[in-house]
C-alpha cells in the first residue's frame, strides 16, 4: 500500500517538504541541546520537568482517544464509525511516536535510554509506561494496516485481528492510566497526589483526542472531498460533549476537595495557577483563565444539539475545547505540580525558545507520520469507493 504515497497532488509533496524543513531546523536545535545539555531549556533544579513531559502526557491522551471510535464500532457494532476508524488508529500511531520522541528529547543521556529494558525495574511506573506505549504502538500499526489492507482487497479482515482489537480497547485505557500513575503516586507533589488523576486524564483525552481527529478530518474533507459521514460526526461530537462535561466535572471535584478541606499544601498549586504568587499573576495564570473561559464556551456551544450540528460553530467549539484541555494538561499539570516547590517557595518556569523549537520539531514529526499514514488510508478509501455515502 506504500505505493499510494507516490501518486499524490503536488501540494501534498509541498506539505511534506515543508514538514521536513521544519524537522531539519528543529533537529538542529535538538543537536545543540545534545551538545550543551538541557541547560538550553527553561527547566531548573526545582521545576525539573517542563514542556517536553507535558506534551508527552497530552499526546498519550490523544493516542488513547482512538478508543472512542474503536469501542463503539467493535463493542456496540456502531457501523457509522467504520469509515473513520482507520484515521483514529493512524492518529494514535503518530501520537505514540510523538510521545516516544518527547521522552527522548527530555532525557539527559538519551543514548542510554535502553537501560530501561536492560535493567527492568518493575517498581517504576516509567517501566510500565514504556511497555504499554510500545505495545499500543504495535497494536495500532498491526490493526490499522491489516484492516486497511482487507478493505483494499474488499475482504473481511483476518480473524486474528479481532482479539487484537479487543485488547487494544483495554490497552488504550491502560496507557493513559499508567501515564497518570507517573504523577499520581508521588508523595509530596500535592497537585498530583490525587486518585482522580487517571480519571481526569482519560476524560480529558476522550474529549480532546476526538476533537483533534474531527478537526483534522474536517480539513481533509475540504482538501479531498472525503466524507467522514454526517451521522458519525454527530455521534462523535456527542461523545466529545459528554467527555468534556465529565472532564470539567472532575476538575471541579478536585477544586471542591482542595478548597473545602482548606489544606494549604493542596490549595497552593491551584492558587498559584490561577492567582499567581504574592499578588502577582504569573504568565501561566493568564493561560489558565483563558482555558477556563474556553472550556465553558466550548460547552455552551456544544451542548445544545442545534449548535453542535452547525457546520461553522462546531469547528470553533472544537478548537476552543482542544485549547482548553491543552492548557490544562500541557501547561497547568506540570507547572502546578512543581509550584510551589519542595520548600514551599516559588521557582518560576517558562519554556525557552529553543525548548519550544524542539517541541515543534516533534510536532512536525507527528504531522509527517500522520500525513503519510492518512494519505495511504485516503487513497485506499478512494480506490474502493468508500469516500462518501
Amino acid at each position: 500500500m506504500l505505493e499510494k504515497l507516490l501518486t499524490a497532488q503536488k501540494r501534498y509533496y509541498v506539505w511534506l517538504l515543508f514538514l521536513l524543513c521544519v524537522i531539519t531546523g528543529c533537529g538542529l536545535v535538538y543537536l545543540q541541546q545534545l551538545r550543551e545539555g538541557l541547560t538550553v531549556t527553561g527547566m531548573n533544579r526545582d521545576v525539573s520537568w517542563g514542556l517536553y513531559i507535558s506534551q508527552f502526557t497530552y499526546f498519550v491522551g490523544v493516542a488513547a482517544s482512538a478508543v472512542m471510535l474503536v469501542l463503539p464500532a467493535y463493542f456496540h457494532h456502531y457501523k457509522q464509525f467504520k469509515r473513520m476508524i482507520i484515521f483514529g488508529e493512524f492518529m494514535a500511531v503518530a501520537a505514540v511516536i510523538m510521545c516516544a520522541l518527547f521522552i527522548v528529547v527530555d532525557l539527559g543521556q538519551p543514548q542510554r535510554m535502553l537501560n530501561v529494558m536492560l535493567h527492568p525495574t518493575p517498581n517504576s511506573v516509567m517501566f510500565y509506561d514504556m511497555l504499554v506505549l510500545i505495545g499500543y504502538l504495535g497494536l495500532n500499526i498491526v490493526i490499522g494496516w491489516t484492516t486497511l489492507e482487507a478493505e483494499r482487497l474488499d475482504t473481511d479482515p483476518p480473524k486474528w485481528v479481532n482479539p487484537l482489537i479487543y485488547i487494544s480497547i483495554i490497552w488504550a485505557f491502560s496507557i493513559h492510566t499508567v501515564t497518570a500513575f507517573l504523577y499520581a503516586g508521588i508523595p509530596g507533589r500535592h497537585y498530583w497526589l490525587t486518585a482522580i488523576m487517571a480519571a481526569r486524564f482519560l476524560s480529558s483525552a476522550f474529549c480532546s483526542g476526538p476533537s483533534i481527529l474531527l478537526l483534522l478530518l474536517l480539513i481533509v474533507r475540504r482538501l479531498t472531498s472525503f466524507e467522514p459521514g454526517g451521522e458519525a460526526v454527530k455521534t462523535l461530537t456527542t461523545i466529545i460533549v459528554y467527555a468534556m462535561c465529565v472532564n470539567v466535572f472532575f476538575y471541579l471535584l478536585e477544586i471542591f476537595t482542595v478548597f473545602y478541606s482548606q489544606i494549604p499544601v493542596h490549595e497552593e498549586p491551584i492558587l498559584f495557577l490561577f492567582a499567581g504568587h504574592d499578588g502577582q499573576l504569573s504568565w501561566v495564570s493568564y493561560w489558565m483563565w483563558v482555558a477556563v473561559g474556553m472550556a465553558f464556551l466550548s460547552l455552551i456551544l456544544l451542548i445544545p444539539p442545534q449548535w453542535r450540528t452547525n457546520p461553522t460553530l462546531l469547528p470553533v467549539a472544537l478548537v476552543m475545547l482542544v485549547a482548553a484541555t491543552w492548557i490544562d494538561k500541557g501547561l497547568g499539570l506540570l507547572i502546578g505540580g512543581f509550584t510551589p516547590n519542595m520548600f514551599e517557595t516559588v521557582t518560576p518556569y517558562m519554556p525557552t525558545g529553543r525548548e519550544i523549537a524542539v517541541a515543534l520539531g516533534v510536532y512536525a514529526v507527528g504531522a509527517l507520520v500522520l500525513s503519510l499514514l492518512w494519505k495511504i488510508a485516503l487513497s485506499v478509501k478512494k480506490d474502493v469507493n468508500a469516500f462518501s455515502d
Partner: protein
Amino acid sequence: MNKSRRSFLKTAGISAFALSSGIAEPANEAYAKLAPGRYTRGETALTAKRWAMVVLTREFKTPQDYEPLIKACHSAHNVPDIAGRQNIKWLWLDAYAHVFPDDMNSHLDEYTRAASYPLLCNHCSNPPCVRVCPTQATYKMEDGIVAMDYHRCIGCRFCMAGCPYGARSFNFMDPRPHLANPAPNPTFPTRMSGVVEKCTFCAERLAVGRFPACVEASDGRLLFGDLENPSSDVRKALANNYSIRRKPSIGTQPGVYYII
C-alpha cells in the same frame, strides 16, 4: 524424544528465558562473576545496619558556622559552583519555614525561626526516588544509604519529581567548566552533563574507615552512626533530646534528624 534430551531442552529453554528476561540477575545479588578473583569489603570499612545523621542545630550559631561543612562536602565530591537555578547542591542551607514547612507556626520563637538549617539527602528508609527510578540507577544499599550510579542514569529526572526534599540536582550542563582546574578532589570523579546527583553519605569515605566529610568538618556538631545500635552516638542523642525530621507525614522515614 528421550527423556534426558527433553529435560535438557526444558532446562535450556528456561535458562534462556531467565537470562534474556533478566530474572537470572536480581538486583544487587551475586550472579556469575567474570573476574576470577573475590570481592570483599575493605578491612577498615565502617559498617552499620542503618546509617543516620543527627544535626545538633543549637550548636550552630550563625549560617557561617555551616560554611566549612558545605565546603568540605562540595570539594570532597567535586560539586561544581553554578550560578542560577540550574545549580548543583549536595549540602546547603535554608530557613525553618522552608525546611520544615509542616511545622511552621506564626509565633515560633525568633531564634528557631531565623536560624539556618542544613539540607541534604535524607537517605530515607522508604525512598520515593528509588521507587520511581526506571533503571535502578539510584538504589538503597544494605546499610540504608541511598546511592547513585551515574553510569546508569539516563537523566529522566523522575527521581527529582519523586524526591519530597528537593535533594537531587540534575547536571543541566557539563559541570567541569564550573569546577576549579585541577578539580578540588583528584581522587573522586566529577559528573557529566545529563545525569542526576546528590549526597551519598560519603559511602566512598565510609569504605575506607572515615566519617562523612561534613561530619568530620563539624567539630562534633553533626553526629553520624548506626541507628540500629542503641549505644551509638546518634541513638544516644535522639534518646536525650527532642528531635524532628523533614516531612514525616509522607512516610519516607528520613535518616537525617534535627535536634532543635
